[in-house]
């Protein structure tokens, strides 16, 4: 009983304290600060939440890597980057630039003043993607009449009429320059290839093919580049090459945190960029989808008629 009374009295005391504090809040400055802290905490929570929701936007970096600026701070210019992004979106409104990766097979039709039909079509495997902003480039490689040919295109070139992805896939490596030294069948693609349509929602397939290299001499020292897409590199090596490879190896480079940092755009900066362009990119993607559906519906009708 006595305990209960004590408790109740202490409760009352606490409540009184609380009231007093609450009244004091208006007068003193300290509680205001506390409120500010609370507000910041809620902001942080919100920030984390938005991060979670923006994860889908962050995935854009694989599909549209050219929207990210150059990581070298000497070449950064926020205004230029912003204008370039706007121009890129405008160009994407005009022409369908599809999702593709190094290793995908593309067909590119350009307006060519030198050719007879005023257009020129080239089919090949994408061996490299580089550059950022409006200067983004990709290189196609093909073997035509036993002659290896590579053509470099600007992604946002206004003379490009159609970019069509014939086979959407990735390869094991980021750059496929070793196809220059590989047997020609690995980079031979017919010009009348039919596009392969992936069912919607499937992830981009990884092609685990390992190419065979021609015997030496090679254009580059492929053995030092840690390539996963080459099967017979050890056959062509001498003891000397293996020793040199060991000497030239840089196993510490994957721990060089600042080197990695200087090659990437930090997540905070990326969030700003994707927040700027994501909605328009999504909208474009949806409209393209609708258009392609319409086309698939319209073609059988013409056949029937």
């Amino acid at each position, binding site marked *: 009983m006595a305990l209960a009374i004590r408790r109740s009295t202490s409760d009352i005391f606490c409540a009184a304290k609380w009231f007093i504090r609450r009244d004091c809040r208006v007068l003193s400055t300290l509680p205001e600060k506390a409120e500010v802290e609370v507000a910041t905490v809620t902001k942080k929570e919100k920030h984390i939440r938005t991060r979670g929701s923006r994860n889908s936007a962050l995935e854009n970096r694989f599909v549209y890597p050219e929207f990210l600026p150059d990581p070298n701070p000497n070449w950064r210019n926020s205004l230029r980057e912003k204008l370039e992004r706007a121009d890129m979106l405008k160009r994407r409104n005009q022409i369908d630039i599809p999702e593709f990766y190094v290793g995908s097979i593309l067909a590119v039709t350009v307006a060519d003043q*030198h*050719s007879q039909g005023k257009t020129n079509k080239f089919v090949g495997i994408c061996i490299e993607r580089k550059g950022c902003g409006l200067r983004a480039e990709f290189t196609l490689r093909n073997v*035509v009449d036993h002659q290896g040919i*590579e*053509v470099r295109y600007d992604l946002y070139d206004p*003379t490009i009429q159609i970019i069509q992805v014939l086979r959407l896939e990735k390869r094991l490596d980021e750059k496929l320059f070793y196809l220059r030294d590989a047997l020609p069948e690995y980079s031979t693609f017919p010009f009348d290839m039919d596009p392969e349509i992936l069912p919607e929602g499937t992830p981009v397939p990884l092609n685990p093919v390992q190419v065979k290299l021609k015997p030496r001499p090679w254009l580059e020292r492929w053995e030092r580049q840690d390539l996963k897409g080459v099967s017979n590199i050890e056959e062509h090596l001498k003891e000397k090459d293996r020793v040199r490879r060991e000497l030239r190896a840089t196993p510490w480079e994957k721990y060089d945190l600042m080197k990695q940092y200087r090659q990437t755009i930090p997540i905070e900066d990326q969030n700003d960029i994707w927040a700027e362009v994501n909605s328009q990119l999504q909208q474009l993607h949806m409209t393209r989808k609708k258009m392609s559906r319409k086309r698939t519906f319209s073609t059988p009708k013409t056949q029937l008629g």
Partner: protein
Amino acid sequence: MLKSVVSKLISAQQTCGFHTTACLNEVRLLTRLRVVDNSEIGKRAMAEGKPPKVICVYNKTRVGYIGDRVLVAIKGQKKKGILVGLKQTQKVKVPKFDSNNVVLIDDNGTPLGNRIHVPIPTILRTILKEKTHSKGADYTKLLAIATRFV
């Protein structure tokens, strides 16, 4: 003094004293070319494994670019040819080939063979037409024997 110089030299050797960037693959004096037409002399030279060498590039820089006229030494003879495909890095939309290709011509610009068995860059059309205007020789005959353009 001598010691310091020697140590510097040794360290330079260890850290690779000369530059090792990829070569430019320019067509210059004594570059080996690949004959891509079916002229008799060209076919035999390629079959014997003695591809022609550049003796002279007919322009001011003496570095051959696409469509330039070259003088080649082939099977002990001097022949003229036109570069129709280069290994060197090209401008955007101009194809880059895996070998330096040449088509043999005579002094009037008439090709020695009657067929080219590799693709020809379309930009050659414009280049050769321009060159024909300035010179007396007619190089556009080369385009007529091409089988394929890229």
